């Protein structure tokens, strides 16, 4: 029943053996122990489990195992490079864009996908890009501020 899947997570090649009806969320959290990927509703409505697949933001609870074969996945754990926080992580810290933190990994990854494609988004474009990520704590104001502040700096992806 289990099948082998080969793909890349946070820059490293991995092979996992899972049933084809497992979701990417389950693979990342349960098989690869990447607990920074959060589960909020298991039905694609809250965005807490957002990861990037080949640079595009995707709700990992809606992705079935076979769909990730050969793909490159980025989770929040993969954002630190050479011990340095990613500029978005730094901006979320400096702008107080985090409260309970449960939506934060998904927010940051959705924001990264946006800025990689559109390094100078307008406020409206930031909002449009993050409309699939729910946050109940912040009112989103400081999240938008953090992303816009980041976009003003030289965006290196």
């Amino acid at each position, binding site marked *: 029943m289990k099948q082998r899947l080969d793909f890349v997570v946070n820059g490293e090649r991995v092979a996992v053996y899972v049933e084809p009806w497992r979701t990417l969320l389950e693979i990342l959290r349960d098989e690869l*122990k*990447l*607990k*920074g*990927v*959060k*589960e*909020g*509703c*298991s*039905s694609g*409505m*809250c965005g*807490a489990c957002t990861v990037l697949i080949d640079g595009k933001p995707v709700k990992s609870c809606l992705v079935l195992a076979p769909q990730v074969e050969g793909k490159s996945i980025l*989770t*929040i*754990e993969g*954002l*630190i490079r050479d011990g340095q*926080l990613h500029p978005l*992580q730094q901006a*979320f*810290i*400096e702008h*107080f864009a*985090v*409260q*309970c*933190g*449960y*939506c*934060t*990994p998904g927010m*940051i990854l959705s924001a990264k996908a946006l800025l990689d494609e559109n390094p100078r988004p307008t*406020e409206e474009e*930031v*909002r*449009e890009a*993050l*409309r*699939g*990520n*729910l*946050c*109940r*704590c*912040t*009112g*989103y*104001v*400081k*999240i*938008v*501020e953090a992303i*816009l502040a980041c976009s003003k700096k030289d965006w290196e992806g």
Partner: protein
Amino acid sequence: MMSEFSYVGANITRVDVLEKVTGQAVYTGDIELAGMLHVKLLRSPYPHAKIHRIDSSKALKVPGVKAVLTGQDAPSRRWGTFLADRPLLAQEVVRFIGEPVAAVSATTIEAAEEAVDAINVEYEELPAIFDPELAMSKEPPVIVHPDLPKYHTKLTGFLRPRLEPDMPNVINHYKIRCGDIDQGFKEAELVVENRYTTSRIQHCYIEPPTVIALFDVNGTLTIWSKSQTAWRQRAAIIDIFGLSPSKVRFITPYVGGGFGGLTWVYEALTSLVAMQTPGRPVKLVLSREEAFIDAPARIPFVVYVRDGVKRDGTIVAREIKMILDAGAYSAYTGLIVKNASFGTVGTYRIPNFKLDSYGVYTNNPPNSSFRGLGSCQAEWAIESQMDEIAERLGMDPVEFRKKNMLHEGDRNVQGEIAHSVGAEECLDKAASLIRWDEKPEQEPGPWKKGKGIAVGNKYTIAGTDSCALVKVREDGAVNVFHTGSEIGQGCDTVFAQIAAEEMGLPMDMVKITRGDTDITPYDWGTASSRLTFYIGNAVRMACQDAKRQIAELASEKLGVPADELRVHANKIYQRGKPDAVLNVPELFRSGGYVGKGAEIVGRATFSCPVTPEDIETGQGERLVAYFSYGAHAVELAVNVETGEVKVLKFVGAFDMGRPINPKMCEQQMEGGMSMGIGSTLYEETVVENGIVINPNFVSYKIPTITEHPLIENVKFDSAPAPHREGPFGAKGLGEGVLIPSAPAIASAIYNAVGIRIRDLPITREKIIKALEEAIKSVDLLGGGSV
């Protein structure tokens, strides 16, 4: 403004944020334990039914199933915050759709689900009741809990729920009487009377309800849970199962949002399941649908308000009746019946006042505590009245409010003397930020603009306690131990700032250890916006105790009287000598201990006194710890063709005493705005005959990032009225930030299109319907088209 302090009042980076932006913060669901089993629950399909028989035999045969439990396996002792009315699993009777009837543990989630499906229950349906006003009548068609008078409560005196023998579904009745209400209405020149309602709101924390329990082979029960009340849930579990307190440990990891919603049966229920499999931990994660049904929601209120005023705008009488739908089990409702009443007394001076507040059982899913603990619902009615009365008098609503506002030293209708009252300054600041004097610029087309304003108060509970420990390490750094829950509000950062300030240490020499009842000391709970005030004070006092101990050790070492020594910034100074006489680390022996008493551990309990109020009149001296205040003002546009509302500007000012961390206060205020927009304009759990129709984020919509005013149109300010008992003058903030939002938005809608909606939420459908009715009534009067 805060220059007298180094850390208090500064925008210190949150101490929890690095873990949170890197995905390293551990929440309950992230914990994996060897041999962990999964728990699933079978829930009732009927709102009220007798259980005749439960057949678990097929469920037990599913491979991987370790235990199947029903009400017969549950202890006779029930769970309940103020009234022990809820069995861990239904016993003989189910009282709402979704009530847990059986629990299964299994090695996989799939096996647990299959076993739940294989349990066969025979029910006999009973008549059910869903309308709280009908349920509170003297001869209700259904009595939800016939045994109510026999239910156990540890509460005594004024906290003990007041039952009404001839109203068998009433679980508490709270009264306030002040002045002469009949005389007050006789003096009135205008009487305004209305009925207001609020909907069943969901907390919608993004982290689902999650509990892990391990009953180990030594008989120790350890619980990991997203909780706001670790110590009290632990006490309930000790009580229900008759365990030794030394054998129950309750751990609260980071909490992915709480908002007052974590008052549930699940820690006790998961513990019951864990006890069937000693040595094997069990994990319960509720689905979002389950959370919408049976993780208690905000209590829907019916509020009748009748006000008498003079033509000059003086309020002379106010009479209130509040009816709270508890649903099938009470959880916090008993307390909310009482404490929601404080919302009606905290802002205004009223000579003649009468209030009756009732909590009522129905067969709806349970409702309980939510950010504001009833003040939102009560003040929705009060502030809407204020707006309407001002209009009827032809007065400016800001001036009308200010004319009747309580000030420092005034006595409120419950007899308390007001102190630390920032209400007026909040209102003035909010009015200024929205440019209250200027009318919104109207544009051609269907969008009509309007402005609205409201003020609000939020009490913080008195008569509770918090403790803190402060351990000094061998380099002089301190470790603060507390049992607040870090639910996102930033309590860890606040306590670290307070400790840094009190000790004169840099932030990186303060470490926080939180949320483990084997290690961290008692706290009443992360509720009532009380942590900054209560634990904040305890942390400060524990730091002072640690400094006293340091001085004593130094006194022995130096041969100098301790009272001549002062400890600050890791150094010890002697009176009369400008330079430090000793460094704190010099008191430690190699390895990190001290020669007498092993360790330097500052300890403190902070208690806020309370005086019992008279149960017939609600009169007392000290009923709350303090009131915090705030005001919201909004500018919005209503589309008269579609009923749609666009919030254009949202501003406010809040009195949180001295803000410990202004940026974190902004976080709260912006979050309150968001929840305010959602809960005022569209959030409603639709319950029909006990069935929750919309138990998910698609059909129950909370604000997304697109539904708020843009950044330059959001502005929050503080209007601090420092409190003499607060740590550095601080009060709480987290709940008040929601309270004025609904009446401010409703007032702006009225200002825009001239319709008053008194039932929350103010949906597009309600606006369109009200606009159509307004047109009809104008037609009937021969007024032509609008």
